[in-house]
């Protein structure tokens, strides 16, 4: 079982995001998607913290943080 508290989750900085879609091409769990207006939509509950989107984002809009049980 995955220790959910040890996963580094992602944070999306929408002030940097240009809503292209490159992060979608890396996301395997559909945590990242487009809404009906084609804006990037992040569903945190689906994120498994693989971080593939972080390195693929051309705007440096995605960063990680560690979940803390406290």
């Amino acid at each position: 079982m995955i220790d959910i508290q040890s996963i580094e989750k992602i944070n999306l900085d929408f002030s940097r995001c240009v809503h292209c879609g490159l992060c979608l091409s890396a996301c395997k769990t559909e945590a990242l998607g487009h809404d009906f207006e084609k804006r990037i939509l992040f569903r945190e509950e689906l994120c498994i913290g693989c971080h593939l989107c972080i390195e693929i984002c051309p705007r440096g809009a995605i960063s990680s943080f560690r979940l803390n049980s406290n």
Partner: protein
Amino acid sequence: MSEKNKREIKYEKTYEEINQKIISGEAVVVTAEEMINIVEKHGIKYAAKEVDVVTTGTFGAMCSSGAFFNIGQPDPPIKMERVFLNGVEAYHGNAAADFYLGVTKSRSLDNYDYGGGHVLEDLLKGESIQLTAESYGTDCYPRKSLEVNVKLEDFNQAILLNPRNSMERYVCAVNSSDHILHTYMGKLLPNFQNGTFGGVGELSPLIHDPSFQTIGVGTNIFLGGAQGLIIGEGTQHNPMGGYSTLMVKGDLKKMDPDFISGASIKGYGNSCFIGIGVPIPVINENIARSCAIRDEEIFTDVVDYSTGELNRPILRKISYAELKSGSIDLEGRKINVAPTSSIYKARIIADTLKKWIQEGTFTLNKPWELIPSKTKYRALQKEDV
């Protein structure tokens, strides 16, 4: 034009008539997406008669972009030989204090965290950047070095001048190999695990006038959040192949960092997202028809990037409707695909241009010369010597 064709084109408008309607606030201006609905509901003839201007938009990484700068001379003056803006080297091969900063130039050879596109974005955000220059010194330009902090307003000119922008369409890239590829189309996972595609389909400017009946030198456009101009065909302009391009210019000082945004593409390098919108005057029924083209009717190629060869294998033709659905069928497999361009921002651009025209602050320039429609891109046919 033959007499027969003249008779077939019932509704024709001149630029003067359209501009008069814009000035009087009577012009009917719609986005390319709205035009599709109008034509579906009322037909081509109605749309040609009633609609005056169709606005388009695109927003994507456009590597062939950059800006010419002129900085006032210090005392004593300098004939700049090497110029850096925030550590990013600009091209100098012009007069003493003129230089060109390309958006793909990276600050470091080790990573692509910061490049020319980021410099343009920082300047537009009002940030101060470091300008350093070196020279050998001459009798007329004695200074040998310069290091100053400058803002956008400190430049005499900052002219965005992009040799190749707004490509008509782009391919969908996939990877059949067993290893990850880092490309300008993003990270392509092995064994067809993903795909990325360029262009925004039915919003894309050049899709709506592929034979260049209205777009030409002098056409005014939305460029980076301000009014810009088309100054000619872009490099690698390939209308016969369906890959037309534009060369554009505009005053960087009037632009907006929301539409000029630096990019770092892992394993490839730096680039810059550029926002462009072209107004298409509905001068006849042919234009009305091409302005209503739908994603289902716009096709591009699915291309295997696993080979390093120039002519990569084309795996199939595909519509933008299928691409925008988020997954494509490839040899019986479902592959998730994602855009490299922002459809969301493209819509904002088309809407903004529409608003400018409706408000009367943007009238249409009649092109001085139309963009060529019969040229074709050629690969290099020479052998290494």
